């Protein structure tokens, strides 16, 4: 069912908050995962159980930054069993990552109300902070520009800042199949925030009259935005592919890797409690390095840098949802996300698999069909 949350004095956030408060006070959710403002111009994800804190701490899901991919947070608070009815305000890439984590048995959607919102994109945290410190008029202007860009279906540019590279090439800024869908694209939110709800949620909130959902140009705005981003994506991934196909291949892309493993830490899909590369398997005897050097005549120290990235590709490229948290986390500015998307896209195509599409779909590498690829292994 569609409804419209009334917005007063152009205060979209207050309207958004009042809706979230209503979800909590009506008992639809007992706890809410939502970003709260920190006072220095950014937000942190938080789990809120007292609805009064939504106003007091200024809950702000529209702040265009993503300190973590919140699928991780949902995994932490649900695991195999959700202890309470939890609501989670998530961006599309967070929802897609969450779906993959559910398949990997690291999270559950039982008793979780997924509140998704259209996402015009996010900025690098530090860059955004340097432009948006504190509150006041400057922030308000930035916020207004952000919402206007979403209405018009163009890239938001705040004080010369560009979106994160992953957002600039995001072709899934809109949601499908969520419990609650907050619309931003193609609508003038200052005149009311359109929401699409599942019927049981609407009933619990005693919303009986369907309002006109979305705006007239809703579809148009998204099409315009994604068409532009598709082009950016093809160009960016094309460049990466060209480099990988040239001499040296992927090796050349990771020469500046400092082995901090930030990409792995930031990746919502890489869930292993202890990564293989942090175990004793990679605690080598001194002779190991000498042998490695003797074999090739010279060897990079410390070794196994590319092995780490290639292994990660094998472990998670089928589930890579292109959120680009790895790129944002890389201190050496390696386009990790684009590299993983460029390869992941091909692996996913091979299995006709779209990560994040449906929690009921099996992961490509844990399922099989006896009658597929029957020519493999039989070659003479």
């Amino acid at each position: 069912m569609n409804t419209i949350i009334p917005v007063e004095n152009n205060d979209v956030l207050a309207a958004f908050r009042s809706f979230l408060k209503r979800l909590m006070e009506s008992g639809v959710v007992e706890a809410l995962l939502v970003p709260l403002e920190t006072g220095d111009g950014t937000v942190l994800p938080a789990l809120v159980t007292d609805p009064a804190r939504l106003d007091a701490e200024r809950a702000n899901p529209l702040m265009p930054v993503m300190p973590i991919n919140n699928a991780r947070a949902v995994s932490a608070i649900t695991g195999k069993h959700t202890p309470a009815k939890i609501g989670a305000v998530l961006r599309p890439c967070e929802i897609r990552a969450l779906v993959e984590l559910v398949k990997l048995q690291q999270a559950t959607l039982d008793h979780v109300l997924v509140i998704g919102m259209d996402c015009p994109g996010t900025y690098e945290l530090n860059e955004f902070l340097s432009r948006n410190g504190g509150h006041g008029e400057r922030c308000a202007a930035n916020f207004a520009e952000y919402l206007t860009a979403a209405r018009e279906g163009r890239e938001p540019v705040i004080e010369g800042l560009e979106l994160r590279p992953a957002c600039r090439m995001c072709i899934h800024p809109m949601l499908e199949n969520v419990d609650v869908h907050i619309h931003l694209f193609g609508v003038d939110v200052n005149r009311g925030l359109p929401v699409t709800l599942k019927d049981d949620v609407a009933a619990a909130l005693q919303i009986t009259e369907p309002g006109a959902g979305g705006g007239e140009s809703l579809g148009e705005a998204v099409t315009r935005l994604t068409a532009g981003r598709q082009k950016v994506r093809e160009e960016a991934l094309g460049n990466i592919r060209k480099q990988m196909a040239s001499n040296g291949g992927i090796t050349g892309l990771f020469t500046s890797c400092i082995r901090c493993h930030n990409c792995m830490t930031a990746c919502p899909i890489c869930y292993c409690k202890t990564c293989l590369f942090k175990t004793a398997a990679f605690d080598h005897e001194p002779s190991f390095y000498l042998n490695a050097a003797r074999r090739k005549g010279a060897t990079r120290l410390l070794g196994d840098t590319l092995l780490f990235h290639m292994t990660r590709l094998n472990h998670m490229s089928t589930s890579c949802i292109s959120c680009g948290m790895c790129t944002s986390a890389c201190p050496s500015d390696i386009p990790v996300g684009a590299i993983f998307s460029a390869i992941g896209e091909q692996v996913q195509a091979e299995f006709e698999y779209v990560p994040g599409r449906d929690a009921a779909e099996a992961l490509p590498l844990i399922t099989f069909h006896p009658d597929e690829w029957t020519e493999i292994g039989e070659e003479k």
Partner: protein
Amino acid sequence: MQYEIRNTQQKGDSMTTNESYEPHIVAFLCNWCTYTGADLAGTSRLQYPPNVRVVRMMCSGAVDPVYILKPLLDGADGVLIGGCHPGDCHYQTGNYKTRRRYIAMRQILKNAGFDDQRVWLRWISASEGQRFAETVTEMVTALKQLGPSPMRVAWAV
């Protein structure tokens, strides 16, 4: 294996020229089928090139991608995975999963700029000693045509 490769290298087995190039192959063979098949090749006194170093696995499904990548990046010229024919897995479905993992691995290697022709997956049963010997012979021929792996001297990996 490390010592063996080092020793052959010291004996003058060139890492860079094609002339005297002998490919190094690391093989992961399933205990129930291909390893037994390789054993049969031996007891039947079948001749095949000595370029292969065998690691015995309990199942081809136990071959983690990292086992394949590690020798490749360290300069092995080829990796062979041997398992039971589909439907014959000792653990029912291990080789079906191997097959999917191999498909993914091949795609990743190809797109990352590696030669996916260096990784072979073959189903060889315990009774196919002949097929094992032929497979190794074929693989050695193919790898000689491909030339030494560029990873033999690539130090910055």
